[in-house]
């Protein structure tokens, strides 16, 4: 069984994004970029499935600028066997990403596709569900545990009230939540080895997918800033303030 893992190059988790002065977007020039943290978790899960003998091959795929090669090399260093880069220099919406991934899945016929549950740049939380819909296959979103048995996979999902477990017919699409696993760091020898692993370059035209955006961003603004508060000197002062504001105990 092949496992397909889509990965996205995004602003690094630790960087505070800055809105451009002209309101056209977020400034990404000379900003550290990394693999979307949820995608690292997805990739780790795929590599573990291969290590357990349940998967034969892990294929990482990225849709993004030529620089997303770096992200794919990281994926290869973490344990992916080969990579596919679909080069698009403009922003691609989740619906178009899902269509491209569907085309890749048609070619590769993976038993499982594991994605991060959302990208930390657009925070859309859509691609996995959309891909499952387009493939006509079941989805296990927000996964905190995955267990493959025969022709089904059990996925434990993080839901608003706690946890929920579903059983899905394979092939299936899974999206990774934070507590699915702790991704490994790529070791230096593996980083060296990754350089010689295959990385194919494609374009959306190769898959005959129309990636024209459906949404137009009219403006991007800073969120409203909260007025600076005060540090109080005692519990009594805090109690007085809270009572003034009408807190009921």
């Amino acid at each position, binding site marked *: 069984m092949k496992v397909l893992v889509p990965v996205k190059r995004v602003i690094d988790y630790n960087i505070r994004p800055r809105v451009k002065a002209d309101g056209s977007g977020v400034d990404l020039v000379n900003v550290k970029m990394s693999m979307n943290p949820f995608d690292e978790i997805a990739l780790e899960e795929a590599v573990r499935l291969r290590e357990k003998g349940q998967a034969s091959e892990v294929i990482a795929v990225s849709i993004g600028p030529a620089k997303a090669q770096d992200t794919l090399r990281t994926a290869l260093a973490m344990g992916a066997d080969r990579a596919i880069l679909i080069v698009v220099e403009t922003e691609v919406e989740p*619906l178009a990403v899902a269509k491209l991934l569907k085309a890749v899945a048609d070619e590769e016929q993976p038993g499982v596709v594991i994605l991060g549950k959302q990208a930390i740049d657009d925070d859309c939380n859509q691609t996995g569900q959309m891909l499952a819909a387009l493939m006509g296959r*079941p989805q296990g979103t*927000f996964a905190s545990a995955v267990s493959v048995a025969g022709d089904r996979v059990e996925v434990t999902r993080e*839901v*608003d009230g*706690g946890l929920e477990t*579903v059983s*899905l017919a394979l092939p299936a699409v899974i999206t990774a939540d934070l507590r699915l696993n702790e991704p490994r760091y790529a070791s230096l020898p593996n980083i060296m080895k990754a350089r010689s692993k295959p990385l194919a370059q494609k374009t959306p035209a190769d898959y005959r997918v129309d990636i024209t955006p*459906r949404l137009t961003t009219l403006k991007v603004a800073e969120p409203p800033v909260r007025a600076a508060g005060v540090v109080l000197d005692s519990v009594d002062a805090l109690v007085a303030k809270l009572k003034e504001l009408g807190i009921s105990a």
Partner: protein
Amino acid sequence: MKTLVWAEHENGRLKDASLPTVTAAAKLGEVDLLVAGAGVAGVAQAAAQIVGVGQVLVADDEAYAHALPENLAPLVVELMAGYDAFLAPATSTGKNIAPRVAALLDVMQLSDILSVEGPQTFTRAIYAGNAIATVKSSDAKLVITVRGSTFAKAVASGGVATISPVSGPGNQELSNFVRADIAQSTRPELTSAKVVVAGGRALGSAEKFQDVIEPLADKLKAAVGASRAAVDAGYVPNDYQVGQTGKIVAPEFYFAIGISGAIQHLAGMKDAKTIVAINADPEAPIFGVADYGLVGDLFEIVPALTAKL
């Protein structure tokens, strides 16, 4: 515009999350509700009371129990022939279903909207709430998830909607519900509570979290939340997490106790009306958003606060 709103329910009870979604839909046009599930006549009755709802569509079928998206999305897609927009709350259930519907309709979804600016234009938070984007859709139909904390709740009683049964393609035989581990709590729902008491890594253990946070929450009839660090450390279950990837809350009062205030956590609570931070580190970023702060040992401060309130 005709809109169809996904009504979220659990154990035969309509959930609060449906109400702000109705408010958002009403800004676009007429509102009908979809109640799908097994044995949901009572939920449909409650849904028909919501002010502003014209019609409640009821799909009562075992296939729609447990809100499995594989079965629900085809039902919604069929119904959408008669609607211009589909709206769901941005809850774990709404986020599971809506994109599946959007892809089947060939529509780019608008996720977790904060406001309705026009018939096709909305605002939404990106980059963990560090930027607010205004986006306009060019799709013929809209699929939207709604952030509950930024829309007022529709009035839950006094409405006179008609109730109509509908049916759909039924079980797609792709997925089964196995089990749920849902904690039963007498506390208010985290996402709609007036007061939230949240704890972080500084609590140090599950026992101390319980000993320090719970009594204050009891006193204030508050929901209990936590930072990712506290959840990862196993002090509390995952459903307590507030933040970019957990729950987004906007209560009247938010107590951040032993929480440093990573941007991912701030994304989930900075719309609270009053934020109180209690932390040993005066440089903690949480003080940058707090209205009132106390610097010191939370193990002394919080019990004292609980006693004095």
